[in-house]
Each structure stands twice: as C-alpha cells, then as structure tokens.
C-alpha cells in the first residue's frame, strides 16, 4: 500500500526503523499531552492552595471550577493523549512497522483535541461545575457531555489504529515470533481501554440526551455503577500502560531483561481478565446494590488484579537487580541499587514511580477496597491521597521518565539543561508523595474531599477540626509547591527541548 523507503528513517541509536507518519502522530499526541498537563498543573496549585487553610485562595465557585478542570485535564487529557502516543510507539516503532492508517490516526487526534477543548471551554465558562464524575441528577451543559463523547470516541479510534498496526506488522512480517513484552503490555492496555470506553458510551450517551431533554431522568445508582465501569477500568489502562513503561525504562536505563516472560505476560493477562468488576469498590457504601454483589465483585476480581501488580512489583526491580549484578555490582545486598544511575531522570523517575505506586498507592487502594475501611474513607481526602500516589505519582512519573528517551529518539533533540532534568523527577516525586501523605492523614480525621471550606462559613454548625488534620493539610500544601515546581520543570524542559534543543550529531 505504501512505498516503504521514503516513509522510513533508521534510528541511529537503536537501529529501529521509524515510520515517519507514525512519528508525527506520536509527536502530536505527546505535545497535546504536555499542554494539558500544564493546564492541569496550574489548576492543581490553585486547588491545593484553597485546601490549605492558611491560604484558602479561591472563592467557592472558583475552587469547584478549578477542581473539575484539574481532574479532567490531568486524569483524562494528559494521561490519555500520552497513552495514545505510547500505543503508536509500541506498535509502529517497536515492531519496525508502518502505522496502519495515519489519516485515521489524525482523525482520532482531531476528535480528541476538539473534545477536550470543548470540555475545557464549558468548564471555564462555568457551564460544567459538576466535577469529573458529573453524578446525575447534577447537570452540565450538553456540550460538556458531547465533548467527553468526542474525546472518548477519538481515543477509541486511536486504539483501533494501534490494533490495526499490530495486524499489519504481523502480516508484513516486520518481526518474527512473539510480541516483545512492552508491546504485549500495550496490547493489554488497549484491550482494557476498549472495555472502559464501552462503559463510557453506555453512560455518557444517555446522559447527553438527558441534558438535551430528549429522554427522562437517569437513575443515580445505575449511573454510578456504569460510570465506575468507565472510571475504574480506565485507571487500569493507566496501570497497565505504566507497567509496560516500567519494563521499557528498565531496559533503556540499565539494560534489564524480563526474568521470565511467562510470569510477566501472565500477570498482564490477569489485568485483562479481572479488572472491570472490581469497580464495585467505589460503591461499597452506596444504596441500591446488595452486600453480596459488593463483596463478590470487590474481592474475587480485585485480589487477582492485585496479584498481577504484586508480580510486576517484584519482576521489574528484580530484573534491574539482575542487570546491575551482571555489570559487577555484586557487593552485599544493595550495591546494585546504590550504584544505579540515580542521576538519569529516566531511572529516578522509574524508581520513584515503582516505590510510590507500590508502597503508598497499592496499599491504600487495597485497604479502601474492604467494606469496613471504606466506611471510614469514602469521599474523605484519603481517596485523592490514594490516587495521587497511583496515577498522579506512578503513572505520571513513568510517563515523565520515558519522555527523556522520547525527546532524543523521536523528536531528535538533545534534552536542554540536563542538570535541571536530573532533579526534575525528585521534585515532582517527593512533592506528590507529600501531597498524598497529607491528604491521606487529613482524610483519616474525617476531612472530606471536594470541599471548599473546613471553616464551614455560613453553615448552621461549625465542626471543630483536629489540629493534626490542619497540620496535614499544610503538609499537602508544601508538597503541592514542590510537585508544581517539578511538573513545571518537566513542562519547560520538554517545550524548550522540542523548540530549541540541539539536533544530536
């Protein structure tokens, strides 16, 4: 269909054949991701400075608006644009193949871009102060829902291009044998994405029609069940993509190989099989669903998905250890770790991602998934405390780390100010860790999430807030300054590298 030769270049570093139209799409999606990260980061600081009682920056209206924007720009736009770039990279580049249908890829990109701009416009105009969950019967402007639908369909088309590229690569024999592990992980993420977006369609299309007045009210309990089929499952796309990148970064930074392909691949399969129904953990204290439904769906599936994370949490560090020991770092138990390339932002981002995701994110998440602990954590700040350790620290750091390889390999620019890049993952990682810890402890004192004023101005009763909780909110605030700085460093480094970075020799 295409004349090879002209559409490819050979990467001088890796020897991979790079399909130029694929490369352009990767660039476009990555640039969009970083732009939305900037929006999300500015909103993050505003929101955090409002929750920090000593500052209490925004008005109530401003806070809820900024919080809605923060959730969507970070969790949806930054993460998913980047994931589409990762999927194109994993299929076309790693398999030496052409991208199946670049034009369709551009259609996907355009739809996602228009959708996200519509959503942001509606939020900034104050027509969608509904939080990213938009629980019915709270209603936003129909264009808000339409924007979400456009974005989701666009993303689905992108996932379709990814799968089509796998077929092309297989048929055109650009590789022999089984898929590389990173590509295998990307396939798992792609499959989960299809499941997630299907739930999204089931819930957003009726909600859109309801907002137009075409159909009657939507049952709020049903909305929550299906919405979390999207909301939870899409977090599993993030985890899966993030872990594929852990394997990728372990190879790029220290030359690690998977210990046992069978174990790693089986763990990815566990994600695909057991992820979606675990969404019941979001509904543990809801009316409308029975205890047996809740218990079955939070325990059977979630623990097998947890098992998969436990496996990756072992195999990735172990593969790094093996690679390091092969280099001769064999003294004692930990020389391999001490002598790891901590000054390489790709490696430090990987290490921080694994540590924060695993120890803080994983452990908090599993505990909230039990019925009784959910009673004392539901809708408190413990919940954002948890997911700032998972997606905001884990996934975001993994994406940041891989960017330091995407810049020279795909954008073909040398990273500007390497000394700043060296520090960047530490600023962001330690900052977000403090955000997460501050939120988690404040939440355990009953401080709720999505709440403008713990002084309860204008309320009939004021609650006496424990001083420890106030202290923890300050920890969150200080963490926010560090994380904001780290995110800004990342954004500036990538933007300037793309604009004025030196072409590698």
């Amino acid at each position: 269909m295409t004349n090879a030769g002209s559409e490819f270049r050979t990467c001088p570093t890796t020897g991979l054949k790079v399909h130029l139209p694929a490369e352009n799409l990767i660039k476009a999606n990555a640039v969009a991701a970083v732009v939305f990260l900037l929006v999300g980061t500015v909103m993050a600081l505003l929101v955090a400075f409002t929750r920090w009682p000593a500052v209490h920056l925004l008005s109530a209206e401003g806070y809820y608006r900024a919080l809605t924007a923060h959730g969507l720009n970070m969790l949806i736009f930054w993460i998913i644009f980047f994931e589409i770039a990762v999927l194109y990279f994993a299929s076309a580049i790693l398999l030496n193949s052409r991208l199946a249908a670049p034009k369709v890829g551009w259609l996907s990109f355009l739809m996602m871009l228009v959708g996200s701009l519509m959503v942001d416009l509606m939020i900034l105009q104050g027509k969608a102060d509904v939080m990213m969950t938009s629980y019915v019967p709270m209603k936003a402007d129909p264009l808000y829902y339409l924007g979400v639908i456009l974005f989701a369909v666009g993303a689905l088309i992108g996932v379709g291009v990814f799968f089509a590229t796998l077929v092309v690569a297989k048929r055109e024999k650009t590789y022999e044998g089984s898929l590389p592990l990173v590509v295998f992980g990307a396939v798992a993420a792609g499959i989960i994405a299809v499941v997630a977006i299907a739930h999204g369609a089931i819930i957003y299309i009726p909600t859109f029609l309801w907002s137009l007045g075409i159909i009657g009210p939507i049952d709020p309990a049903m909305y929550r069940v299906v919405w979390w089929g999207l909301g939870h499952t899409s977090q599993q796309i993030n985890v899966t993509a993030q872990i594929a990148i852990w394997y990728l970064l372990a190879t790029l930074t220290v030359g690690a190989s998977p210990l046992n392909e069978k174990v790693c691949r089986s763990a990815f399969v566990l994600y695909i099989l057991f992820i979606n129904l675990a969404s019941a953990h979001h509904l543990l204290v809801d009316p409308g669903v029975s205890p047996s439904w809740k218990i079955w769906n939070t325990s059977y599936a979630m623990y097998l998905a947890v098992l998969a994370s436990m496996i990756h949490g072992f195999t990735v560090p172990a593969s790094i250890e093996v690679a390091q020991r092969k280099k001769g770092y064999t003294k004692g138990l930990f020389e391999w770790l001490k002598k790891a390339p901590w000054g390489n932002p790709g490696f430090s981002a990987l290490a921080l991602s694994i540590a924060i995701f695993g120890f803080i994110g994983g452990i908090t998440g599993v505990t909230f998934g039990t019925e009784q602990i959910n009673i004392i954590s539901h809708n408190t700040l413990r919940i954002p405390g948890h997911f700032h350790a998972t997606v905001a620290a884990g996934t975001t750091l993994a994406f940041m780390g891989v960017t330091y390889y995407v810049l020279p390999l795909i954008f073909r620019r040398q990273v500007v100010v390497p000394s700043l890049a060296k520090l960047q993952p530490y600023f962001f990682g330690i900052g977000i860790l403090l955000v997460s810890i501050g939120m988690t402890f404040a939440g355990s004192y009953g401080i709720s999430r999505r709440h403008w004023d713990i002084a309860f101005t204008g309320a009939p009763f004021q609650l006496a807030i424990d001083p420890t909780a106030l202290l923890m909110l300050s920890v969150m605030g200080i963490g926010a300054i560090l994380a904001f700085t780290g995110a800004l460093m990342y954004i500036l480094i990538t933007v300037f590298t793309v604009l004025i970075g030196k072409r590698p020799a």
Partner: protein
Amino acid sequence: MSISVPERIWWKPVDKSEKIWVGLALTWCIVMFIMMPLWHLKGGQNAPSETYRVTPAQFQKATQEFIDKYKVGEEKGTAIVAPPAGSDIYLNSMMWRWDPILKLEKGKTYRLHLSSMDLQHGFSLYPQNMNFQVLPGYDYVLTITPTTAGEFYVQCNEFCGIGHHMMVGKIIVS
C-alpha cells in the same frame, strides 16, 4: 530485552525466587478474599444492606410526619426531634441542609432512613468519620446504636453545588 522479540520458546520454568513471591502474594490474596465475606458476617460494623425505592415526595412526607410526631424544639430554624428508642427515624437531605436534628439515646437501636430531595449527597458523621452515600430515589436504612453521648455533626461529603460546605446537620446523643 523487553523491547525485542523474545526467544522462540519463552514458556520456561519459573525461578525459585519468583515462585516463592507469587506463592506468598497469592496466599495473601486468598486470605483477603476470605476475609471480605467473613468480616461481613463477624464484624460489628458494616455498610447497611437495606435499601428501598422511594420518590422524593414520599420521603418528604414520611420525614414531615416523623417531625410532627416527635418534635421537641428547634435550633437555628431546624426542628429537634426526639423519637422513641427502637423506632424508624428519618434524616432528609437537600441543597444545602439536613433535616431534622435528631436527639437519640445512648445504647438504643434505631433504623435511620436516609434519602435526598434533589442531588446526590454524602452522610459523613463527624468526628466519628463514618461515611455513606445518599441518593435521590433510594431509601437507605442504617441500623444504628449510638455508643457515646455527646453532640455529633453530619457534614455533606458529596459535592452538591456552591453551598455544599454549608450543609451541616446535627445529632444529639444523651
């Protein structure tokens, strides 16, 4: 390498260290799996299992009848209601208040009905920190036994509009 095609046969025996780890992790997962139902049966504090369909109008009516019957006073414009031990009690939620103020006796058991007149709200008992979702159209029944005397507050912890932070109710236990 994770970015290149693996050897032809990659279905290989697993190393001992990996086997031990997977075994430990799996055992832990099974323990958790068993604990979930077990603790539901054995534990003293569970999410309630009783829910019914109710329209906002029906729930409003039930709450009003409840208030009329047991009202003992008023605070800040909200009725204070002292229902008899063991009875069905009602706490209605709406933008942005909880109605009425409940006056309960320590050690007595009540059936607390929760619902909403408009949007989704969150029942968050302070400082106990117990949280339950409140949905319009659903009557959520919590069987509760207060174990400490004092004044407790109910803050809304599901975003319900600009006045969300003002939505604070009260429960008195004597």
